[in-house]
């Protein structure tokens, strides 16, 4: 039993650099494992959770980093992703409804339509968000329910795909699913390969959509790892020719009106006047609203939101007040604040002064269908009202673009054509 060595480290750091390198490597590996796990889990949470992944530093690149951050802010202002994914029923629907850009109805022609706007024929079908990520693709309807869960040729949209770029990149497309040919018509691009396009102009988004979608093979016919075809929609400058082509041109899908997008507008969630929908009998089967039986009611019907104080409002922000219910009536009818209530509008039921609603004569019908996530918007009520009384016609649109096309003498032109 010889004496023990009692030397202690002398003038040495307590930890070697090699040990430090090992530990840092382990730390990085643990972190990466956690990231992959999160990703796998979040994919399941909801389509929306994907937007949360913008926080990945890799996604914040170059000039787009700012837009990604601001998007983060607006999202976090609303609801935490995890919280949102736990919402159920009408809460969930409301939340999802807020994530899509919803066009207002065109009740009058916006200025500079021919220079600042695009037009295209809206495919008839189900509006949905399509998200590809981590080897799978999910489509969600406007009310939040899942439409399809499928492999696609979109980036990271199927497990077998040769993925270029970071594994966690994902795409969000604004689509309309067209039943007859089982095709997703892409009407807008919100995120591409992990990059947010929310704060890009429509002009850029459409350019990007046109140049990027086809190169992935997403527009190819369906195959084993590509269950549904995606298709671009022809988009036109809103001049006379463009407008005419969109209105009368042959497209592979059933049309449901025309959509107008302001070129400079960002992708704004919720109702926006910078995207507009217009329709007539020639380009849509559904000009006038139908009731729950699919019949066009004799009187126009509107659905309004009942407020605490009994006021009846539209879904706009700020809301437009259409009337008021007194407390007794509310109680008798079993209504609660937050209920959606259906009313009939009599034929001379609305009066306008300078384009603003001055008076609405509406009659209580009953509670609206519970599946509804929101009340009617002001523009929709007015469009429907106008459609029954003095619709904005295609000719009016053509007129406005041709008149505005001669810059500098707008008023004169209007008179001359008349």
């Amino acid at each position, binding site marked *: 039993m010889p004496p023990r060595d009692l030397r202690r480290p002398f003038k040495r750091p307590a930890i070697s650099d090699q040990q430090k390198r090992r530990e840092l*490597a382990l730390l990085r590996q643990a972190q990466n494992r956690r990231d*992959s796990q999160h990703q796998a889990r979040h994919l*399941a949470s909801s389509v929306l959770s994907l937007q949360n992944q913008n926080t990945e530093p890799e996604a914040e690149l170059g000039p787009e980093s700012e837009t990604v951050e601001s998007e983060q802010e607006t999202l976090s202002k609303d609801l935490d992703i995890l919280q949102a994914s736990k919402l159920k029923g009408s809460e969930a629907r409301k939340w999802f409804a807020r994530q899509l850009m919803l066009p207002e109805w065109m009740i009058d022609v916006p200025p500079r339509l021919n220079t600042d706007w695009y037009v295209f024929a809206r495919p008839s079908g189900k509006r949905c968000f399509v998200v590809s990520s981590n080897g799978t693709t999910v489509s969600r309807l406007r009310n939040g329910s899942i439409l399809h869960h499928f492999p696609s040729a979109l980036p990271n949209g199927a497990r077998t795909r040769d993925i270029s770029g970071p594994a966690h990149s994902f795409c969000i497309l604004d689509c309309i699913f067209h039943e007859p040919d089982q095709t997703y018509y892409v009407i807008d691009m919100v995120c591409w390969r992990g990059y947010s396009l929310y704060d890009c102009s429509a002009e850029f988004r459409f350019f990007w959509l046109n140049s990027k979608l086809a190169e992935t093979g997403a527009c190819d016919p369906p195959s084993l790892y590509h269950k549904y075809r995606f298709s671009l929609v022809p988009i036109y400058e809103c001049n006379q020719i463009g407008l005419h082509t969109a209105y009368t041109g042959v497209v592979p899908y059933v049309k449901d009106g025309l959509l107008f997008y302001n070129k400079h507008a960002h992708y704004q969630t919720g109702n926006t006047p910078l995207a507009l929908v217009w329709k007539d009998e020639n380009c849509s089967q559904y000009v006038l609203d139908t009731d729950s039986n699919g019949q066009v009611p004799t009187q126009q019907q509107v659905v309004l939101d009942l407020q605490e104080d009994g006021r009846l409002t539209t879904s706009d922000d700020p809301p437009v007040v259409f009337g008021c219910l007194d407390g007794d009536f509310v109680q008798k009818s079993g209504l609660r604040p937050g209920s959606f209530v259906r009313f009939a509008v009599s034929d001379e039921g609305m009066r306008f002064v300078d384009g603003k609603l001055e008076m609405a004569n509406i009659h209580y019908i009953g509670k609206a269908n519970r599946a509804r996530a929101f009340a009617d918007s002001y523009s929709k009520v007015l469009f429907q009202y106008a459609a029954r009384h003095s619709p904005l016609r295609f000719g009016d649109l053509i007129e406005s673009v041709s008149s505005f096309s001669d810059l500098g003498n707008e008023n004169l032109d209007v008179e001359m054509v008349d």
Partner: protein
Amino acid sequence: MAMEVTQILLNAQAVDGTVRKHAEESLKQFQEQNLPSFLLSLSGELSNDDKPVDSRKLAGLILKNALDAKEQHRKLELVQRWLSLDTTVKAQIKSCLLQTLSSPVPDARSTASQVIAKIAGIELPHNQWPELIGALLSNIHQLPGHVKQATLETLGYLCEEVSPDVVDQDQVNNILTAVVQGMNATEGNNDIRLAATRALYNALGFAQVNFTNDMERDYIMRVVCEATLSSELKIRQAAFECLVSISSTYYDKLSPYIQDIFNITSKAVREDEEPVALQAIEFWSSICDEEIDILEEYGGDFSGDSEIICFYFIKQALPALVPMLLETLLKQEEDQDQDEGAWNLAMAGGTCLGLVAKTVGDDVVPLVMPFIEENITKPDWRQREAATYAFGSILEGPSPEKLISIVNVALIFMLTALMKDPNNHVKDTTAWTLGRIFEFLHGSTVETPIITQANCQEIIKVLLQVMKDAPNVAEKACGALYFLAQGYEDVGSSSSPLTPFFQEIVQALLTVTHREDAGESRLRTAAYETLNEVVRCSTDETTPMVMQLVPLIMMELHQTLEAQKLSSDEREKQNELQGLLCGCLQVITQKLGASEPTRFVFMQYADQMMSLFLRVFACRSATVHEEAMLAIGALAYATGSEFAKYMPEFYKYLEMGLQNFEEYQVCAITVGVVGDICRALEDKILPYCDGIMTQLLKNLSSNQLHRTVKPPIFSCFGDIALAIGENFEKYLMYSMPMLQSAAELFARASGADEEIIEYTNVLRNGILEAYSGIFQGFKNSPKTQLLMPYAPHILQFLDSLYIEKDMDDLVMKTAIGVLGDLADTLGGNAGPLIQQSVSSRDFLNECLSLDDHLIKESAEWAKLAISRAISV
């Protein structure tokens, strides 16, 4: 029957190589042909006083080696082999050994006592050889001196080999009585006293009960303290060793004796010979270790239920202890800084002073400052060096507020000394002290910065200049720069005060690595380590310069590969240099790979770098270079799916790394790299999975593999499953039963020992990560049903973890995540099962109520997944 082995044993020690080889061969054959007879012959040889001492010693040594080995699995084999030997053979061998203790030949006695202890180590835990201790102690008082000495030595070895819990208290009492009596001052035979004192050192662990008895403890302590005053140096030294051991084992019992011990140690430090004085200093270092641990654990809060009490021995002894230690600082040896094995009074004293400062903090400063002020400008280098060393030693512990003003003055002084002092030691210690200043008083956590715009340039200028000094001084300058850079690691991506000097610093460090004498004093290693830290802590501004380093370091690595026909010494040096260069490339890769724009530029080097790493591997025949493996992990992370193109060539080394049981660190690192590659390649790793999984499964079932590698292997299952998804199907039938049996084994910790619980939790975490990865990998696949049969067991595992209540936060987080993954992947099918489990209610609710953000996050996820699974 025993055969004649004497000549063979002597031949085995012959100078002539052929004779020796032949004899070794015969011994080997003999052992293989008839083990019992072989062992009998050896024990007979050892016990026979007519035989030459050399053959007896070797016989004993071979016997000892037949009972024990370093490698754990080999050791277990030998134990089993001994236990299965015929009882009469064993009895005969043991009897020979006991008989040898009476031999007049000291070497024979000593060898026999070691062999006896080895056998005791095997047999006592199996309740065999119960008469041994009784036989040793039976008539110890009547024994002749040399037998008594051998018996005490045997008891000492025995206590070293055997765990205290297999010896009952009566026998412990008898052992201690015999040992302590042998140590007593009345024992006239110094050999006996020394053997007894050394035996006590090992027997202290058996004395738990005796130390709670005041009378017995007083007696033991008195005898130990008396032995420190023996006229025999070896006895004094052994007695101080006992005191050091007591200071950590029985800290809480020391209070009544501490004053006496202080007097004894202080006299020894000042007057005794160095080996004794060093032990005396070590006593106080050890007390510091204890008090630092206690204070760290309880944060100085002993109000209520803390188990261990801090007696503040150091604080009380401070006024006398510090002057004693300061005196030792003046007893430096010439050239101690160049001698790696040096350990002397000055070094031990300074180290102890550093620990004292860590223990008491601010209080040490006023006691040391006068010494520094008095000596720092003296003409004798010993005084200047001692003063500087004292200052450097007290920089960790006291608060920055207490030190900053002193440091600000000292900084200027030291920069001058570093440039101008004629003495190498003074410069060495000065550079080291600067490093300590930067380590403890520079960084984002210190409120008043000691490095300012005004002095930064000067500091760097001096450090870079000193890097040209003697290797030991230059090495300390590199160390100082290391901590200087580290202090800026939190400056963020914006701007670092080091930016203007970055190029110059890197250049200087590279120059150091090329110095002819960079092999001395660890200088080259220090230069690369500093370069690594400078890179780690660099900001975006200097990224282009870090990028420029890539081809440079690659070129260096390339050059090491060109050298041919190396001697083994040169090969070792080449290997070391390759390690440093791979380490550097790893750090750079991790740095540049972490942000997208730099990663993109960096990628142009990936092919070349990978081919260099492969060539480094090829330099060796059977082992894998650990540093190259680490670097490849970083490269895989940076390259992502493109790493696939390297796999065909890299795969064999990956496999080699996984097979490296002996260097388990290499094996563990390789397992980690498999995880990196899984995440980089995703399903492109599929073609390699058969080989990887086979090897991993083999590793898990091996008892040769170091246990620390097993948890990462489980986690790695998860990485693979997540990467290849439902393709993991074919491995389920192998991996799931293994996970299941490991889960069963580790649902409960096999002891209350802190280390066992810690390992248990690490292993649990690995198992759970495997389950997580497998569930998530199978999600949305039509094959999820394959996992259904495993669900009940996994839920049961989670339940038992919850019930055991000994998991750490990490396990809790992973476990509750597995619950979510199970629900998420199995969905409604698992609904009823989940609802039945305790985990889905109590465990989940507990996790939801915790403040830990990570646990909560996982729990929220589990809750969501369960609610979906149940609502389907």
